[in-house]
């Protein structure tokens, strides 16, 4: 039993950490966000060169052959720098879906380009009416000749402004809420009929509304069997939730550290505010919240490994990742709000980094379901007859 990262994992973790500390200071990040692209292509190329983009991919495609532990290692450090380059969207989510795809040709075509840094990707699943329900899909994929025609609207598509390719969920059969009948297609951002309306999110990352009007796709663009998209999504969901939670953990730890440090220097009523017992106890609570979140993340990592090795059933892991995301929501909210409150007026300013960490934490909370959503999913698995 151990909760250490392996030597290899530690190396990559350290390398991301060094990048954040040495090259990704707050002003650099602000400059990137304010640039036209909103991301740094140079840094992305560097990520590719350092091998970070290859982490979770199989060696046959040129990948590093890592697992969720590797992803968590990278994402936690990215969180500490609130890196806006779309690593989660491209590598963890989009890349994760492709890795789990049964379409060998498609994988061979796309994965190497992700690794090389030439393909930014995104998963377009949300619709105006769907909120967090992945199976609430009204975008249609109508059979047409050898392929399908896609019609529908996808909203708040992560990395929408820069993604070259999207995995799009569309319904090949069934009714609006049916679990089966959802299919996943790889769609090019520049394909005829694809309209991308991009905008900024408050965390500096981009998003878009994706309108699909008679977009023609062929069988080769299906990630797996038609109608079987939900199964593939569920298979990848632990990796997605773990990746985002690891990023959140990095943010939470950073916010706590910054707040404790500030409380030691900020003087009010003739003493550092960190000497006031009420604030001390609240910082103890945020510290404990962060440690509990870390423990839940480690639980997810250990169980992922067990599932991969066939020793634990996937339901236990599903319960854990729902609990993990709900825990991130709970403590993330408390930690973010306490960070602002304890910083006082200065915590309210755009100039200070605190608010920006908080905003990314808030965005993670609503990505792939908020706290209540995941806790209810947890309840469903735990307490149903």
């Amino acid at each position, binding site marked *: 039993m151990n909760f250490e990262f392996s030597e290899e994992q530690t190396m990559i973790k350290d390398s991301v950490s060094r990048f954040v500390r040495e090259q990704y200071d707050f002003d650099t990040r602000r400059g990137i966000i304010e640039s036209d692209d909103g991301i740094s292509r140079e840094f992305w190329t560097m990520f590719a060169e350092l091998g970070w983009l290859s982490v979770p991919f199989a060696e046959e495609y040129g990948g590093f052959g890592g697992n969720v532990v590797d992803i968590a290692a990278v994402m936690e450090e990215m969180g500490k720098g609130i890196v806006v380059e779309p690593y989660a969207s491209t590598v963890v989510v989009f890349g994760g879906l492709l890795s789990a795809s049964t379409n060998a040709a498609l994988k061979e075509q796309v994965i190497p380009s992700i690794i090389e840094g030439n393909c930014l990707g995104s998963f377009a699943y949300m619709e105006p009416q769907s909120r967090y329900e992945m199976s*609430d899909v009204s975008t249609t994929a109508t059979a047409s000749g050898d392929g399908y025609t896609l019609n529908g609207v996808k909203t708040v598509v992560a990395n929408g402004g820069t993604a070259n390719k999207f995995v799009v969920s569309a319904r090949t059969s069934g009714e609006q809420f049916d679990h089966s009948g959802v299919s996943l297609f790889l769609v090019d951002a520049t394909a005829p009929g694809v309209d991308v309306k991009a905008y900024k999110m408050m965390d500096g990352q981009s998003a878009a509304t994706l309108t699909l009007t008679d977009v023609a796709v062929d069988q080769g663009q299906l990630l797996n069997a038609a109608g079987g998209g939900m199964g593939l999504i569920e298979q990848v969901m632990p990796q997605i939730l773990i990746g985002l939670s690891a990023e959140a953990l990095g943010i939470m730890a950073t916010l706590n550290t910054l707040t404790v440090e500030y409380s030691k220097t900020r003087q009010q009523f003739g003493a550092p505010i960190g000497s006031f017992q009420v604030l001390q106890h609240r910082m103890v609570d945020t510290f404990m919240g962060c440690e509990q979140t870390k423990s839940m993340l480690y639980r997810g990592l250990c169980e992922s490994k067990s599932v991969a090795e066939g020793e634990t059933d996937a339901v236990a892991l599903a319960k854990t990742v729902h609990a993990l995301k709900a825990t991130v929501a709970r403590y993330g909210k408390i930690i973010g709000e306490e960070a602002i409150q304890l910083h006082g007026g200065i915590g309210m300013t755009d100039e200070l980094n605190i608010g920006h960490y908080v*905003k990314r934490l808030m965005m993670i909370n609503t990505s792939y379901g908020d706290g209540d959503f995941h806790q209810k999913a947890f309840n469903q698995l735990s307490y149903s007859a």
Partner: protein
Amino acid sequence: MDIKFSAEDVAFRNEVREFFAAEYIGEATTRLGDSQSTDYKSAIVGWQKKLHAKGWIAPGWPKEYGGTGWTSTQKFIYETERGLAGIPDVVPFGLKMVAPVIYTFGSEEQKARFLPRILNSDDWWCQGYSEPGAGSDLAALSTSADYAGDNYIVNGRKIWTTFAQYADWIFCLVRTSKGIRRQEGISFLLIDMNTPGITVKPIVTIDGKHSLNEVLFEDVAVPTENLIGEQDKGWTYAKALLAHERTGMAEVADSKRMLEGLKQRATTEINGGKPMIEDPVFQMRMSDIEMELMALEYTELRVFASMAAGGMPGPESSLLKIKGTEISQAIHELQLQLAANYGGALAGDLSSDELGHDFAAEARGKYMYGRAATIYGGSNEVQRNVIAKAVLGL
């Protein structure tokens, strides 16, 4: 045990409602609500002049200076109706903050010079209290005003100054002597914002907006006639003002209106085909707030009733700010929870149809800026310290 209003009060309430319905038109609503629009100042001033014309601009003032002469019940009714109608309060710095200090502690010349212009919204005032090193601990302020014949020479920095960018005047607490107690040696000065040596630097807040500022004073000469009361006694005047400020911070009517909005939106936000308002868990989250608000409404009424009866507000008045801010923040949080992924969208030029959602930006803005509610005006931590001491005797 009775909350009935008299027939006169009911008639007054109807008059207020009718006036708001007739005069507070939709166009104004939008402009008054958006502090970032270019004609915000003129919209506010326009609306306030309309209130002044009606004679309702200064319910809190004594009648001799231009107050309404209303009973406490009428004041309460007016504020309640304003909140329920969603009309923003008047900009408080002139009408509610400096004016009471001027008419209570100012000279006859100062009253004559400043009060009529405040009533008519001719001068826009801002507040110079907080400093980088003096937040909740206001007495730690260090901006200096050195006596030099006819003038005080002011040097220092004031921060969190709301709408300083629009202001003609600023009222400041400045240090005129180094007393033994930190509260001594502080004076209350009125300063013309056009005086040379004043620089206003915008502060953008985490909602991405600009309403706060830093105000820098570099050898700013302020005529001694702009000193309120006695030199070195400013803390006393400011404290009296703070007590004034503390009543009516529960903003129950505003929260009620927001909560109604929340319920409405919970009927249109759908998850899994079902409106969120039917979700048993979300219902609990809403009623956690609604029940607190129902109680707070009566706490406010209790405070008001004892004041209306000519008494002092009881210990229950001390919780108005804490509970009021906690409730409004809780509503903001649920609003943002309802907005889901859309809550973070800086959709810019996209219409709500193009974005796929219609209240996300508002929900985000209120949540983010609303975090300040438990920080300013005496943080909620300081409020609890005060109750522990003053009410519980700890």
